[in-house]
């Protein structure tokens, strides 16, 4: 029997110690009406090699970003994963360890989280980070809850330029708290209209969210936004791609008090969108409202430094129904991966990563602008992602490009003021000059072709 060590002799000897004659006797106290009176209708067990072959067959029926050339983003990116990240994070000591509730035998996990918290604080300019969240969307919802609780208000403004998947999760998670959700409109530049937002800032508003760079890959007018939100006395929550913080102004610099985001590009495989790595950081004044685990540094009886889970009086195992969040875990192994990734990168490496992303975005912009009929509708500064406006539906281009081995991007129909001809293209540090040229070539080929071309996937 896989993974179970018991021999028939073991079982016999153990039953004797217990004082029963058969394993079934151990279940005799289950009430008859609750018993399953048949075997489970599941397939027979397989050998290790049979399971492996089943999975390899599954993998063969898929087509991933290793096989195709990916320009997909929208929150999850085709980013470099260094070998050291895989090697270290697969160590049993990290992989198979439990939650660090016994700090004396969990200093490895705890120090890693403390270092992760430090990295996130240094990237965002915040004072306090938690040990991680499920993903960027749930981190945002938790950040909004914190802000509204701090202000004792129940109205939040979300920007139209927010990731629509984040908006859906926020809608669900705020429904239970009866929060009033307003939307700040997007302008012709693809960014929030600051004046329109300012006019919405009534005293009922406790929290304003911005995403920077926004879902369209554009840098918002963060200084002006931060000013009007703070003048109105609301809490500014920033949702950010942490890779962009290599170069972009930190949320602290423009007055955000809570920062959330998705750290998947720091060494985490996309695996169809999970497990990911949400993060949540805040200014010192909010630290006792931060959800989830937090690690602090302290010392033992001999004065040796050590780390523990702390601020636990916020948590649901103490506060039960008075808790404001029910999160009881963190994405520990992925936080480890991101911490190793950032250690590999260092400060200079981080800047180089940012520049690599920027220069590729610039190169793609120039290449596609040479393709007749293609427009880059938003001229403002951006990072990592670019919107293209095509003379024909983006969905048709997506299918055409896929038949040429390219994952062309995310059609934007109905998102942030965009129409059916708009597509969101992500360009990461992994894309080569040849990849970028191929993109422009396939785009030109598509636009040269007949309107009604049947696309063979």
């Amino acid at each position, binding site marked *: 029997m896989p993974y179970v060590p018991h021999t028939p002799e073991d079982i016999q000897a153990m039953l004797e110690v217990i004082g029963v004659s058969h394993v079934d006797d151990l279940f005799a106290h289950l009430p008859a009406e609750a018993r399953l009176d048949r075997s489970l209708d599941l397939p027979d067990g397989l050998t290790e090699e049979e399971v492996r072959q089943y999975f390899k067959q599954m993998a063969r029926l898929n087509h991933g970003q290793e096989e195709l050339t990916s320009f997909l983003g929208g929150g999850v990116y085709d980013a470099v994963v260094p070998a050291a990240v895989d090697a270290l994070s697969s160590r049993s000591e990290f992989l198979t360890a439990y939650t660090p509730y016994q700090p004396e035998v969990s200093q490895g996990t705890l120090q890693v989280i403390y270092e992760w918290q430090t990295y996130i604080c240094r990237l965002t300019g915040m004072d306090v980070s938690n040990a991680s969240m499920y993903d960027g969307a749930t981190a945002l919802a938790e950040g909004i809850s914190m802000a509204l609780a701090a202000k004792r208000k129940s109205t939040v403004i979300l920007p139209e330029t927010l990731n629509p998947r984040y908006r859906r999760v926020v809608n669900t*998670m705020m429904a239970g708290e009866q929060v009033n959700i307003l939307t700040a409109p997007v302008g012709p530049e693809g960014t929030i209209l600051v004046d329109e937002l300012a006019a919405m800032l009534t005293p009922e508003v406790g929290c304003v969210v911005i995403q920077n760079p926004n879902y369209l890959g554009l840098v918002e007018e963060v200084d002006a936004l931060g000013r009007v939100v703070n003048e109105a006395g609301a809490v500014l929550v920033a949702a950010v791609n942490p890779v962009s913080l290599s170069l972009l102004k930190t949320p602290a610099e423009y007055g955000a008090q809570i920062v959330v985001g*998705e750290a998947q590009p720091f060494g985490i495989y996309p695996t169809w969108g999970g497990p990911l790595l949400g993060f949540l950081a805040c200014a010192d004044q909010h630290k006792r409202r931060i959800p989830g685990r937090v690690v*602090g540094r302290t010392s033992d009886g001999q004065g040796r430094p050590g780390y523990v889970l702390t601020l636990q009086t916020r948590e649901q195992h103490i506060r039960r129904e008075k808790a404001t969040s029910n999160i009881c875990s963190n994405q520990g192994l992925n936080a480890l991966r991101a911490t190793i990734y950032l250690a590999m990168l260092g400060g200079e490496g981080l800047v180089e990563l940012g520049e690599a992303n920027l*220069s590729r975005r610039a190169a793609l912009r120039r290449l596609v602008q040479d393709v007749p009929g293609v427009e880059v509708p938003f001229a403002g500064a951006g990072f990592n992602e670019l919107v293209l406006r095509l003379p024909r539906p983006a969905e048709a281009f997506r299918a055409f490009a896929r038949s040429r081995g390219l994952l062309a991007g995310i059609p934007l129909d109905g998102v942030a003021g965009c129409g059916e001809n708009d597509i969101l293209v992500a360009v990461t540090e992994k894309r080569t000059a040849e990849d970028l040229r191929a993109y422009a070539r396939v785009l030109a080929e598509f636009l040269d072709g007949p309107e009604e071309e049947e696309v063979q996937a």
Partner: protein
Amino acid sequence: MSNETCPTGQTAARRWNAEAPDSIFAKGVQGRRALGFAPLSGDLSGDLTGATELPEAARRAQPADLPSLSEPQVMRHFTQLSTLNHHIERGMYPLGSCTMKYNPRLNEQLAGLAGLADLHPEQGVEDLQGLLMGLKLLEENLCELTGFDACSLIPAAGAHGEYLGMLVIRALHLQNGDTDRTEILIPDSAHGTNPASVVIAGMKPRTIKSRQDGCIDLDALREAVGPQTAGIMITNPNTLGLFERDIRQVADIVHQAGGRLYMDGANMNAIMGKARPGDMGFDVVHLNLHKTMSTPHGGGGPGAGPICVTAELAPFLPGPWIRRQADGSLDLENQPGPGSTSIHSYFGNVGVCLRALSYMLRLGGDGLTRATECAVLNANYLLARLKEFLPVTHDKGCLHEFVASGSVWKQEYGVRTLDIAKRLLDYGLHAPTIYFPLIVDEAFMVEPTETESRESLDSFVAVMETLWQEARSNPELLTEAPHTTPVGRLDEAGAARNPDLRHLGPCNC
């Protein structure tokens, strides 16, 4: 405290030959690099620099101050850190309610395959046929295991599954026009996430007293239900490891009052192939794949907490739903309607689900049943061998875990359960779950799981016998434990009073 003063032989305390490394933020040296990125090649690079994309005004004033390290330094730092952890492959975790079983390496290898790990969540179904086939199979297997009709793999953790379970029950009542059904009954022995999940789903928890054995008091239940009842949340087997014997009556009472039953499936390892929540009258169950289905805890996550539900509740599960087409291909369908539910950016912790699928395929139906049998056998064996000096309050035979009480140790020797737990760390074992459930004095909750061998259980018993002797002859060994770990008991009160939550000071020298 040196090794020599500890008992010798098999049960000697283990010295921990590891020291904590300095913070990584104190190790940087300007100019070192482990990872770099090539500039664009050829004519494309040209005059293009980041400056054309990002004006000075949008940039941060200072680059982030991060330590610069070489790759060998990084490898050493994290390898040294790793040696400070207890983990399954070092020694046993007798952790009640946590099911710390062996994490098969096969699962890790397969979830990391190209064609699975490299799938982007915005890819179309034409690229996902193998993945969707596997996830659909997992959904169907979990439904058969639990006796339900539909499954959502999306919840990223057990608490996330509880939350989704509450959302679907609430959605059903709202659709039926029962806007006043907002009360969820929770026994006082429940885990703290249960009431928290109820509240964030927009409902109200109402605590009902359980009997001395942690089971539901039927009279208290009958009094509590009414037109305000949305449902009840029950852990079965309960937090004392006992099966809720009146579960059918509980289900009848709640259903007749118009409520629905939610089962916290944290203890599913006790009943696989023996009993199914769906057959007992439950409407929703969540499973912890990181417990029952052998996926690793990773020092705190990621796990996965799928829920299985009755056909009545299936329409309220969040999309996308995986649908099998007439031609055998698989498609994704969004949950219809404007008020659709969304609890994660994408489809939850898919990589964890793949690991669980690998485990379920490897074991098969008989293997899962066998896992439960051996888990229950191991728990009963430990109970029989330990009860002499760790009495069990409810000694009617346990399932996969039992709750003992250390109150005799406290009365006789002034040794608390916390001290026993900390002394176990010196012997290469993890502590059990202690002081939970609250209804047992000096609770000491043990769950060995099926992957521990008889020898390993015997050595745990031998360590406990040694500790019993130590408590009598030299209780300070326990009250001041642990002695051999990289650090001793830490000042948790000080950590909370003056939080030090990040490294300060410059990085590179």
